[in-house]
C-alpha cells in the first residue's frame, strides 16, 4: 500500500528525513512514534503529498506522489494535528462539502455523508453547527471529513490529543472498524498505551531515521503468546526454552511473553505441554508487545528523548 524508498527531506540546516525506507501493507494500522522533532509530521505530510520529498520515492497504491500529487490526494485522507472546521456550517454541510470537494459524485454525496456520519456516531448531529460541538465530536467530524471519500489510506497526526477517555475509546473502535473495511491507517501519537489497543504495526522514527519497523501482533517468526500463572512456577522457563519454535520475548512476575512459531497448532501443543507438566496456567493467548517498553528500549538505544 505504501512504499517509501530512500526518502530525504531537508529543512534549512536540518535533515528532517534521512534515507527512510519502509513498506506498509493494506488494511493495517501503523503507529508512527518518535520523540518530538523526530520527523513524524514531516513524514505524514510527505505521505499526504503535501510536501514532495527532496530525494527518494514514495508510492501510495503504486502512485508516485512526486509525479502525481493530485492523484495521490484522491487516495489519501489526512487529519493534521492542528485541524480546522468551518464553524458556521452545520455538521451535515461540513460533510457534504468535504464529500463534494473530494470528488464524490453528486448522486452519491448524500449516501456518503450518511455513511460517514453513522461510522463516526455523529448521525444525530447533522443539523448542529460545528462550533457547538464538543472536542470529541469535533475530532470525530474531522476524521469523518477525512474519510468521507473512502480513501485507501488515512493519515492521522495526533488524533487523540485533547480527547477524554470515552472519546479515545471511541476513536480506537473507529480505527479498528476502518481497518476492517480495508482502509490502511497510519497514526502518529504520543499516547503509546492507546496505540497498543488498535495498531497492528509499529514505525519508530528518531532524528529523521527509521529505527524500528515491526508487526505488533505477529511476526514472520511466530505468534506472540502471553502466559500468566496463578503462582510462580520455576519450570516455566525451562520448558519454554526446551520447546522447539518457542522464544521468550519478555518475562515479568505476572506474565511471560513468548513467540510461538507454527501457528495455532503449535500454540495448542505448548499449552497442553505446560498443563501436563503441572503449570498453574490462568491465561494463555495471543497478545501484543508492550509498546512503551519497546519504544523506550529502542529510542534509548538511539539516545533519543521521551515520546
Amino acid at each position, binding site marked *: 500500500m505504501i512504499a517509501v524508498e530512500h526518502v*530525504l527531506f*531537508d*529543512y*534549512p*540546516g*536540518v*535533515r528532517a528525513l*534521512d534515507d527512510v525506507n519502509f513498506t506498509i501493507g493494506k488494511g493495517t494500522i501503523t503507529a508512527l512514534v518518535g520523540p518530538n522533532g523526530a520527523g513524524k509530521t514531516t513524514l505524514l505530510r510527505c505521505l*499526504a*503529498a*503535501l510536501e514532495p520529498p*527532496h*530525494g527518494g520515492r514514495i508510492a501510495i497504491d503504486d502512485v508516485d506522489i512526486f*509525479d502525481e*500529487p*493530485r492523484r495521490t*490526494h*484522491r487516495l*489519501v485522507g*489526512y487529519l*493534521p494535528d*492542528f*485541524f*480546522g*472546521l*468551518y464553524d*458556521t*456550517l452545520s455538521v451535515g*454541510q461540513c460533510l457534504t*462539502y*468535504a464529500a*463534494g*470537494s*473530494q*470528488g464524490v459524485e453528486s448522486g452519491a454525496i448524500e449516501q456518503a455523508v450518511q455513511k460517514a456520519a453513522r461510522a463516526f456516531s455523529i448521525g444525530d448531529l447533522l443539523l448542529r453547527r460545528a462550533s457547538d460541538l464538543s472536542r470529541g465530536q469535533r475530532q470525530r467530524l474531522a476524521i469523518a*471529513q*477525512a474519510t468521507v471519500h473512502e480513501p485507501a489510506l488515512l493519515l492521522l497526526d495526533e488524533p487523540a490529543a485533547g480527547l477524554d477517555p470515552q472519546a479515545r475509546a471511541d476513536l480506537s473502535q473507529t480505527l479498528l472498524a476502518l481497518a476492517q473495511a480495508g482502509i490502511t491507517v497510519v497514526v502518529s501519537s504520543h499516547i503509546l498505551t492507546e496505540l497498543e489497543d488498535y495498531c497492528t504495526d509499529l514505525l519508530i522514527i528518531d532524528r529523521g531515521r527509521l529505527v524500528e519497523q515491526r508487526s505488533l501482533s505477529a511476526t514472520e517468526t511466530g505468534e506472540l503468546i502471553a502466559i500468566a500463572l496463578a503462582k510462580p512456577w520455576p519450570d516455566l522457563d525451562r520448558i519454554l526454552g526446551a520447546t522447539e519454535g518457542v522464544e521468550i520475548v519478555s518475562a515479568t512476575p505476572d506474565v511471560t511473553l513468548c513467540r510461538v512459531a507454527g501457528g495455532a497448532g503449535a500454540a495448542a501443543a505448548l499449552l497442553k505441554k505446560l498443563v501436563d507438566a503441572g503449570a498453574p496456567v490462568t491465561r494463555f493467548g495471543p497478545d501484543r508487545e508492550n509498546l512503551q517498553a519497546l519504544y523506550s528500549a529502542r529510542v534509548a538505544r538511539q539516545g533519543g528523548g521521551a515520546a
Partner: protein
Amino acid sequence: MSWEFRRNLWIQLTPHRLIATSIVLGVVFLTADRIGALRWVSAGVFFLFAGFWGTRRAADSIMEEVIGGTWQNQRMSAVGAWPMAWGKLFGATAFAWYGAGIAWIVRAYADFSDAPLRVRFDAVEHIDLIAMLVFAVLAQAMSLLVALIQMRRRRRGRHMTVGIGQIAGLMVLIPFLDRWSSERVMEWYGNAIPAWSFLNLSALAFLFWAMVAIHQLMRAELQYRDMTLRVPAFAVFLMTYLSGFVDIGLAPEIYRAVVLQVAGTAALLLYYAALLAAPGEPVALLRLMRALRAGDWKLIGELAPSWLPAGLIFAAVAIAVIVNALASPVTLPKLGFWWLRYAIDSYASWVAAILVFAARDAGIVLLFAIGKRPERADVNSIVSLAVLHGLLPWTWLAFQSPSLAGLTSPVPGASTALMLVAALAQLLLLGVLLNRRLAQLQPKGVAYA
C-alpha cells in the same frame, strides 16, 4: 458549480444577513431618492460593498483558511485551480455582491430615469454601469492576488496580509474614480481613443491577467506540476501595452529607441515585482540547486522562480537597447529625458549597469530568502533595496559626490564605467555569500545529491 463557491454561499448568504441588508438599503435608497441624491448614493453604496468590503473579503478568503487550519484540506481536495480561484473570488465576496448588486440595480434605475428619452435605451450611455462591475471585480481580484502572494511568502499575520491586499485592491479603483471628470482622448499606437473607453478596455485586460496570475498561484498551491509560460506572456503584453503610448510621430530611429526603452522599463518593473513576490523558500532553492546539478531540465523548469523568466526577458530587452544604442546612436535629449543630457556619459554602459545592478538585487533578495529569518525576507529586501537605490545615492548627491552615488545604484551623475565595475564587484560578492549560505543550509556531512 464549484464546491468552493457553494461552501462560501452557505457561509456568506445567511437569511438574517440578506433580510437585514435589504431593509437597511431600502431605507437608505428611499431617503436618498427623497433628497434627490439617488445616483451618487447608490454609487457610493456600491463601492462601499463591492470595493471596500469586497476587497477585504477577497483578501481574507485565503487567509481565513490558513489561519483556520482548513487550507491543507483544500490543497488536498479534488477542486481544481480554476474552480478554487473563482470560487474564492466570487464566493467569499458573495455577501458584498449582494449589497453591491442592490446598489447597482438602483443606480441603473437612476441612470435610466435621468437619461433623456432619445438615449434612454442606448447601451453606450450606460457603459459606466458595466465599468463599475469591471473595476470592482478587478479590485477584488487584485486583493486576492496580493493576499495569495503574501500567503505564499509565508506571511501569517492575518490583519497585515488582508490589509495590504485590500489596499492594493482599493488602489485599482483610483483610475475609475478619477475618470468621472475625464473627457480626454488617449493616443495609443496612433489611434485616438476616448479615455473612458480606453480605461475600461485596459481594466478588462488587466482583470484577465490578474485572473491568470491567481490561477497560476493557485495551481502552484494545489500541487500542479507545470512549467509556466504565463510570466513571459504577461511581459510581452505589458511591453506591448506601454509601448502603445509612445508618440508614433517621432523619427523612426528615435521611435525605435524610445519603444525599446519603454519595453525595457516595463520588463524591469515586472522583474522586480516578480522578484519581491516570489516565495523565498530555502528548501525550494535547495531543490532547484539539486536539479541544476543533476541537469534535470524538466524539474528546473518547474522549480524556477517566476522572476527568472522575467529577468531573462529584461536582459534580452536590455541587450537590444544596448545594441541599438551602439548601432544607431541617438542623441540623448531626443529620447525625451532631459536629465540624461547632463548625467549619462554612455547610454549603452548605463543600461548595462542597470542590468548588472538588477542581477545584484536578485542576489540580495535570495540572500535574505535563505537567511536565518526567511519570514522577514520581503521586508528586509525592500528596506535594503530602498537604502541602496534611494537613501545612499541621495545622501551622496546631497554631499556633491555623484561618483559615490553611482556605487550602489545606477543613478545619473556617476561615471557609467565606475557604476558597471561597482555593480559587477557587488554581484561577485553576493555570489560568494550565496554560495557560503547554501553550503550552511546543507545538513552537515551531506553533499548535494
